[in-house]
């Protein structure tokens, strides 16, 4: 017989976690993480727009903070790359310790390789 007043534990939304093929634990999208990512990504784009050196772009404090978010930032970075482009390959490489691009890939080819990697590993659709 159903009860009228379920306990707090029963109504609490479950935290959905699962592992992708690479073994990373994905947590249901977090609003705060996305908000923080958006602010940092916008700041990074604004403050590095005239820079032509990848090292200088990547060493920007906002970019480093995104890298510091670690694995939870992977889907956010991939979605940003998918939607707006940008020099996110360095961050993806450092966070994942992978590089799915062919050795002699140009930038567009490397971006495609990373987006395919993200799809294969269920980070993005």
């Amino acid at each position, binding site marked *: 017989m159903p009860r009228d007043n379920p306990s707090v534990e029963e109504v609490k939304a479950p935290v959905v976690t699962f592992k992708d093929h690479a073994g990373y634990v994905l947590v249901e999208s977090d609003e705060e993480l996305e908000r923080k990512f958006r602010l940092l990504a916008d700041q990074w784009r604004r403050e590095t*727009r*005239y820079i032509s050196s*990848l090292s200088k772009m*990547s060493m920007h404090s906002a970019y480093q903070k995104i890298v510091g978010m670690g694995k939870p930032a992977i889907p956010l970075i991939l979605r940003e790359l998918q939607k707006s482009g940008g020099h996110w390959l360095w961050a993806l490489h450092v966070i994942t310790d992978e590089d799915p691009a062919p050795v002699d890939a*140009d930038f*567009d080819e490397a971006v495609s390789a990373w987006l395919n990697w993200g799809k294969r590993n269920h980070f993005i659709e």
Partner: protein
Amino acid sequence: MPREEIERDFPNLRTSQWTITSPIADIPNCIGWALHDNKQFWDPSVVGVRGYYWPPGVPRVWNLNNIRRVFEIHGYELCSDAELETGFEKIAVYVDEEGVPTHATFQKESGEWSSKLGVWEDIEHTRVDSLESHAYGTVAFIMKRKRV
């Protein structure tokens, strides 16, 4: 990006003619642009991430000597001024206060300079010093090669 915003960051543009010549793009960067390679972002990519181009034989460090070497292996040699010379193509490299390269631009046959501003637009400007600024510092050297 609005013209006013570019002029705010490069105030010398306000006193010369200049135009935006293409939209914002992640590639190329200014080095690729100056060497007429519109497909690649020329960078030593010191952490080894793929997708960036750096010519073989040039040390993988972003400094003035190595940027000069990149242009040398493409037929450029140092010259004394930025004046238009018939039959020659010129490039200029800018450095910040610490001597770190910030930008490269090339001179068109018309005498105008063409610059890709980082990952933003490319522009044409009449004077090489139009981009001297807090962002790009000053011109460090000019090089030239025979126009093909």
